[in-house]
């Protein structure tokens, strides 16, 4: 869809919007020609595309407020957008709406080493926060693998995780305060510089709200002292069952590693081929178990972890000697996606969470699905918190393969629910998982979620159509073709 095929309704709306926004923003902040808005037609879930009517790129909070007020008065949907690295289509534009790019809000307002906090605008990149905090020996803990590109506003909207969640928590656990604008452009603050605020704790709603409750403008994050030392154990296992049992045993022993990741055999081979990290190619599964803290803590924890891994059938154990080797161990895991890209023309990344104890069961189930759908699947797991990312390999140019791939993905998600898990651990629902929400939640639960949205956004203009499927949609699910997407920019590290 582009300028040439704009329906008359869209064209009229666009003309009206552009003329109103032109009174509120400098011309450089308004995009509406097809060649300009095309770049905003999707986020990293490229299977879903929609060119927005207008893209507004405000430069001040007052301008954002003015745009919101104007859209509110005209009943125009608003889709806020950070770096566009989201994986579930949360930033997919609305055909009759304004995409609100917050890219220009990229200033780190304050790093306070005594309070161990940073106040940053929403468009600041995740990694930039840690870089700014580094001179003080501090860092921002959540590290989604797209951290070189993704913004803190997007992280808050998605409650992003990373490989260190088990010990350091998700975005929710590392945010103190969020300044936002309501749908009608009023400033509002959630949380504060204190540890709690009066009234209901709305932070868990705002964090993970996928742009549907308010427009996030500014965030105060917690900074942690950078651990003095980190060391990583690489352990091999002869079966996925023994690897799964070892994960449970580590936790049962009272160890909370900084990271606990699992790669299956095929993933290990692909990663080794890509980065030459020295992975054990004979192992059925490899565990990466990291400990960080003071030198004394790390030494004690590493020894305890080795004992547990050995007692649970590790066939080979290697401990990183130095920082260089530790990063080498991680390089394959961090490059799991581009490595998979070399094995297949396309891959579809899934994201669900299951109880840790069902890990081996899940891998076996996926193995069976490989046969059923005649497609290969490689697996990486945030094993410590049960979050799995199966990558289904397929060729998007073959419609029949794409169809099988989508069915494969849907079956993985439903298997996750059946094993006591959830359809998304960290990528969000967006548009991608609307159908799965029909499976995981009852009509009453979905209605209550919709009512929560309405409490923040009575007009229903903030990112409408995401996260909560309509009753009608759920009724039709099963009959309709299930769409699912592919990654854009496969070379960008993720997860």
């Amino acid at each position: 869809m582009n300028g040439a095929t704009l329906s008359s309704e869209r064209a009229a709306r666009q003309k009206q919007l552009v003329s109103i926004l032109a009174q509120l923003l400098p011309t450089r902040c308004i995009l509406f020609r097809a060649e300009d808005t095309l770049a905003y037609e999707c986020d990293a879930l490229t299977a879903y595309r929609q060119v927005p009517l207008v893209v507004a790129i405000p430069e001040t909070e007052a301008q954002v407020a003015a745009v919101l007020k104007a859209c509110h008065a005209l009943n125009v949907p608003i889709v806020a957008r950070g770096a566009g690295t989201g994986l579930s289509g949360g930033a997919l534009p609305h055909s009759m709406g304004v995409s609100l790019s917050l890219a220009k809000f990229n200033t780190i307002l304050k790093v306070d080493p005594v309070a161990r906090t940073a106040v940053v605008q929403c468009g600041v990149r995740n990694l930039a926060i840690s870089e700014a905090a580094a001179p003080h020996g501090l860092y921002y803990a959540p590290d989604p693998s797209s951290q070189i590109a993704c913004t803190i506003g997007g992280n808050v909207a998605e409650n992003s995780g990373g490989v260190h969640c088990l010990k350091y928590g998700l975005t929710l656990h590392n945010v103190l305060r969020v300044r936002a604008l309501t749908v009608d452009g009023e400033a509002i603050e959630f949380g504060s510089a204190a540890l709690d605020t009066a009234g209901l704790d709305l932070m868990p709603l705002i964090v993970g709200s996928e742009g549907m409750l308010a427009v996030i403008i500014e965030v105060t994050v917690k900074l942690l002292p950078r651990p003095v030392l980190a060391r990583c154990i690489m352990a091999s296992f002869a079966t996925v069952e023994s690897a799964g049992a070892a994960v449970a045993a580590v936790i049962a022993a009272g160890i909370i590693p900084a990271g606990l990741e699992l790669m299956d055999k095929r993933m290990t081979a692909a990663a080794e081929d890509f980065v030459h990290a020295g992975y054990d190619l004979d192992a059925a599964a490899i565990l990466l178990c990291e400990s960080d803290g003071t030198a004394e803590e790390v030494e004690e924890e590493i020894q305890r972890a080795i004992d547990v891994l050995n007692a649970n059938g590790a066939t080979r154990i290697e401990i990183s000697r130095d920082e260089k080797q530790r990063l080498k161990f991680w390089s394959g895991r961090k490059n799991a996606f581009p490595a998979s890209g070399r094995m297949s023309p396309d891959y579809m990344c899934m994201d669900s969470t299951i109880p840790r104890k069902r890990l081996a069961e899940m891998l076996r189930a996926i193995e069976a699905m490989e046969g059923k759908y005649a497609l290969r699947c490689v697996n990486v797991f945030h094993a410590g918190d049960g979050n799995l990312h199966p990558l289904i390999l397929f060729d998007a140019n073959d419609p029949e393969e794409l169809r099988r791939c989508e069915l494969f993905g849907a079956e993985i998600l439903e298997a996750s629910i059946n094993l006591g898990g959830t359809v998304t651990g960290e990528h969000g629902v967006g548009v991608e998982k609307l159908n799965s929400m029909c499976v995981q939640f009852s009509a009453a639960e979905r209605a209550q979620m919709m009512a929560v949205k309405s409490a923040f956004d009575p007009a229903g203009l903030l990112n409408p159509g995401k996260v909560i499927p309509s009753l009608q949609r759920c009724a039709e699910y099963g009959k309709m073709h299930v769409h699912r997407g592919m990654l854009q920019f496969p070379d960008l590290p993720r997860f």
Partner: protein
Amino acid sequence: MDAKGHALQRLIDRVMEARHSKSALDIRGGGTKCFYGNAPRGDVLDVRELSGITSYEPTELVVTALAGTPLAELEAALADRGQCLPFEPPRFGAAGTVGGMVAAGLAGPARASVGPLRDFVLGVSMLNGMGETLTFGGQVMKNVAGYDVSRLVAGSMGILGILCELSLKVMPVLPASRTLCFDFDEAAALKQLNRWAGETLPVNASSWHQGQLFVRLAGAKAAVSCVQQRSGGREIEPHAAGSWWSDIRDHRHPFFAVTDTDLERGESLWRLSVPDTAPPISLPGEQFVEWGGAQRWLRSTAPALHIRSAAAEVGGHATLLRAADKSPGVFTTLTQPLMDIHKRLKQSFDPVGIFNPGRLYPEL
């Protein structure tokens, strides 16, 4: 239908009845926190029939319990497996329940280092004001499917619905713990706490009162003993240290003993939640500092307005815990946009307004 099903059905019947007659329900577990928040009103709805641990898998770090389960029973089950609720929920009596703990949202000495209660809520089953049983969240660590209602109910004082079942994240008891005592005035103690927090020291809890700073270190054995050698301070014998922290947690420390006579002469107990870097707050009365400086308890006869503006000045808020007269409001007034959202949220969960009306704010 099993016992749980019957108990749930009875609760649903009560909700439908109250909804029909537009009458208030005072949701209650052990009733140990009736003093907290605005005065309860309405017909008492005892939820303790819904009791028992539904599932506990130590290797999953998750426990699921019915809301009426005594907190003591839950904590004993966790302790048997070397695990705990690391935020140290206060016990204001033996009868406290898991549901009451979550609804009140309070946490003890370790809160500043381990996070608030809400971070440990993974899932909830609840009844809303339409008598519908709703489940949000789940039993896994990472879950971003839909809005995180399970954490919204933490600290909601029961105004959104009846909590029926809760899944909580649990953690291993840390291998070693030591408590050290230092002589510091308040300003020096706060500075020292801020400095320690910026280092990789295993500071797990802190308290300052009358010139004495207590610090609990907890973590790996080697790390805890090493810090002790470095930082100096007098070591407190383990048993005494244990009582020290649990007495603060449960308000059994003499500082918290506000008698009826004290109340009659206008003294109140306040909780000031402020940025941990806030300097000593000058207010009439006596203060007790926790959470690395972020929580300051105050016994004072000063007017509420005075205390609230002092807290606001440093970026915090003040909650009135114990007072003869709670008419100044227990919780700090919200800004209008926040109150508007609160009202609409309340309306969405409980359209007729039957659940704990007024307990959090008179208008909710």
